[in-house]
């Protein structure tokens, strides 16, 4: 067994853990075993991927086959795993961040009735996600895709007694479904076009999809009309899973799930599956000249859109949810300008700092007994200093402050976009790049708006719904008035804070530590498409000078200005002079209202789609009740009616019956006689 074969086990260890945790649900005493089993399985998966990383050399992908699955006619789908550098990066992210979040969740979810069920779902999610990133054919990828969708549904609706959680879970699943429809159609079309769904075989005799796409690029294989449509269908799936416009509406509602779920699934891993999928299938996407620009456009617009909304939200987790949408937009922008290194690197760093942010928000939530409204929390830094610092680390990374991981990854994307736009004299891409820069400003602003509001300023806070009812704090104007409470917010235990420290370290340092490694990894991945403008290594890019600086240095300057400017804005309005913010809010009431209501997108969908569907459903219900049931009842009623009609002839008089018999016999005999005459 070569080193590579060990990768076979990566999905199945969490699967086994899921089964064991499922068994632990049976009895309350067994519950305590759920978390260790799950955490150990994820750590084991991480160790395997980390330990055997040498077996995966850049530019030398391998496939290993776990077992055969479907062999019907031309369709050959196996549980095969494609291990190449891109996979390895994704595996690190998924299993690493997954392990940390699981450890955090062991402390966060303590005392919950569904403790074992939670870890079962998390393990199942890990199985599906690792299958997704390791899949060597589209059908298995789709299996993982659907699996993570399922686990997302299960975990969002984890507190199924809450109707809002159940509704959010349904919404997530249904919106994802719409995207998945596109993905499925794309897979079908791919199979029809290329005759196979395997991505890469390394065998010239039976090439995989990526190899065939490369052949189309070279000109050895004729192009077909399907080539133009496949990317659009596939990107629909990516948009659904990664919450881009117009399928972004599920992610903010998904915050109904427990915070570790939000951190793991809706920040670090599941939502990045769309980015991974496009990165993996880049050769297919480049066959259509309109596909990637569409991706980039949607990504940039989504980024701006979400950032605007985030700037007005008052719920901690909702701000981070919109922030996630916005950052995913960045990733799509990156991959749209063919900077797959940039996109994947941003994915990598985003996992760290977004998970960190969500988990610290979880800390705050836990401490404040489920209070999430920013307007009711202020000045927590004295009570929760560690959380304050951890969240600061995450916020710095998110804002792209120089030195943090976020800075490096965002810079990569922006620079590539600007470079591509300027060197190809394509004003559209340049516009997108400018939009992205504006979005960066907004990102810094809203991130620090949250941090300043929650941790800085006068210390007054209102405990949340889980708290025992106390009289609320009276609003005092300014000054550090410490109000005595029965139950004060406090720091969490080390089980929860430990992983946060690791994540914070990553958020701050992963930038300069991992950048070269990721670049080599992704650059040598099997999906490296010809003509990719990977960041600094763009082949033959003309030297472009802006204000005397080349593009990258210019970008660095712009990033610094933008991030610090955003922080300064936030500091002014939300720390030093909060009343100014309130006055502006009153002055621009309508704008604020539009932003707060998420540009009324949900209401639009409701009026456009949900209500007509409901009416259609009612119509069909009526049709079903009246027409179909009516028909069936009619068929049932006919014998009864016939019976009732005949019933009146049974009057109980024997002689009546006798009369009938006699007359009948006579008539029949008459017929017989005359017929046989």
């Amino acid at each position, binding site marked *: 067994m070569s080193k590579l074969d060990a990768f076979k086990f990566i999905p199945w260890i969490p699967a086994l853990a899921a089964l064991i945790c499922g068994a632990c649900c049976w009895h309350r005493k067994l519950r305590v075993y759920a978390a260790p089993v799950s955490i150990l399985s994820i750590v084991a998966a991480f160790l395997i991927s980390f330990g055997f990383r040498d077996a995966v050399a850049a530019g030398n992908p391998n496939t290993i086959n776990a077992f055969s699955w479907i062999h019907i006619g031309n369709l050959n789908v196996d549980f095969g795993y494609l291990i190449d550098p891109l996979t390895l990066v994704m595996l690190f992210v998924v299993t690493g961040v997954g392990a940390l979040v699981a450890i955090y969740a062991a402390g966060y979810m303590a005392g919950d009735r569904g403790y074992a069920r939670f870890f079962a779902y998390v393990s199942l999610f890990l199985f599906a996600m690792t299958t997704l990133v390791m899949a060597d054919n589209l059908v298995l990828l789709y299996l993982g895709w659907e699996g993570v969708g399922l686990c997302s549904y299960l975990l969002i609706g984890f507190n199924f007694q809450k109707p809002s959680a159940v509704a959010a879970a349904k919404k997530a699943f249904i919106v994802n479904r719409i995207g998945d429809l596109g993905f499925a159609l794309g897979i079908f079309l791919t199979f029809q076009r290329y005759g196979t769904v395997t991505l890469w075989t390394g065998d010239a005799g039976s090439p995989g999809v990526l190899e065939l796409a490369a052949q189309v690029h070279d000109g050895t294989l004729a192009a077909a009309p399907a080539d133009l449509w496949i990317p659009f269908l596939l990107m629909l799936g990516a948009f659904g899973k990664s919450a881009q416009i117009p399928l972004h509406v599920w992610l903010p509602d998904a915050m109904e799930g427990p915070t570790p779920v939000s951190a793991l699934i809706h920040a670090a891993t599941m939502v990045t599956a769309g980015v991974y999928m496009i990165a993996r299938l880049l050769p297919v996407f480049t066959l259509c000249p309109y596909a990637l620009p569409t991706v980039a456009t949607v990504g940039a617009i989504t980024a701006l859109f979400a950032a605007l909304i985030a700037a007005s939200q008052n719920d901690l987790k909702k701000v981070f949810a919109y922030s996630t949408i916005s950052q995913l937009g960045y990733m799509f922008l990156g991959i749209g300008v063919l900077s797959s290194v940039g996109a994947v690197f941003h994915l990598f760093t985003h996992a760290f700092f977004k998970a960190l942010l969500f988990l610290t928000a979880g800390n705050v939530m836990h401490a404040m007994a489920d209070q999430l409204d920013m307007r009711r929390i202020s000045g927590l830094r004295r009570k929760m200093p560690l959380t304050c610092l951890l969240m600061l680390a995450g916020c710095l990374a998110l804002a792209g402050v120089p030195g943090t991981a976020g800075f490096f990854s965002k810079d990569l994307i922006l620079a590539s976009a600007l470079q591509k736009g300027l060197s190809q004299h394509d004003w559209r891409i340049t516009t997108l790049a400018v939009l992205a820069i504006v979005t960066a400003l907004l990102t810094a602003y809203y991130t620090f708006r949250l941090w300043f509001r929650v941790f800085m300023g006068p210390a007054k806070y209102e405990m949340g719904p889980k708290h025992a009812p106390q009289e609320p704090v009276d609003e005092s104007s300014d000054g550090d008035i410490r109000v005595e409470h029965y139950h004060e917010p406090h720091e969490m235990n080390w089980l929860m804070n430990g992983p946060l420290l690791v994540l914070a370290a990553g958020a701050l340092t992963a930038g300069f530590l991992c950048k070269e490694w990721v670049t080599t990894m992704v650059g040598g991945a099997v999906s490296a498409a010809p003509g990719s403008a990977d960041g600094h290594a763009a082949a033959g890019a003309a030297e472009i000078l802006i204000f005397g600086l080349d593009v990258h240095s210019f970008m660095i300057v712009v990033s610094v200005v933008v991030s610090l400017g955003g922080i300064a804005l936030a500091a002014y309005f939300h720390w030093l002079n909060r009343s100014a913010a309130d006055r502006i809010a009153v002055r621009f009431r309508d704008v604020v209202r539009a932003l707060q209501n998420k540009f009324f997108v949900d209401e639009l969908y409701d009026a456009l789609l949900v209500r007509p569907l409901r009416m259609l459903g009612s119509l069909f219900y009526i049709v079903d009740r009246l027409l179909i049931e009516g028909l069936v009842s009619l068929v049932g009623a006919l014998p009864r009616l016939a019976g009732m009609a*005949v019933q*009146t002839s*049974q*009057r*109980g*008089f*024997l*002689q009546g019956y*006798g009369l009938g018999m*006699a007359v009948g016999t006579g008539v029949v005999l008459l017929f017989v006689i005359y017929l046989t005459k």
Partner: protein
Amino acid sequence: MPTPFEPLQDAALSHFLMTGAVLFALGLAGFLCRRNLIIMFLSTELMFQGVAISLVAFSRLHGNDTGQTFVIFVLTIAAAEAALALGLVVLLFRRKRTLDCEAWAAMKG
């Protein structure tokens, strides 16, 4: 008279059948329109008579005695039936003090 071993050759058979048929029809009419239970049963006995005459006529037609044997069985059954039916009639009369057949129309739809 024709010898008894020779089957009836002439059309006199039809007359005997006619008599049997008339008796049967009269019995049927009586059964269907009289309300007194006893007269209803008596009408059925009348129907038996008609049938017996027809059977014996046919046995004479064919020259064998199966018809007459059958009539013996019919007589047996008629006797048994009459006994039981009349027993029932007495019981019914004791229950309702009336012999009107319309009093026992409870099994109506």
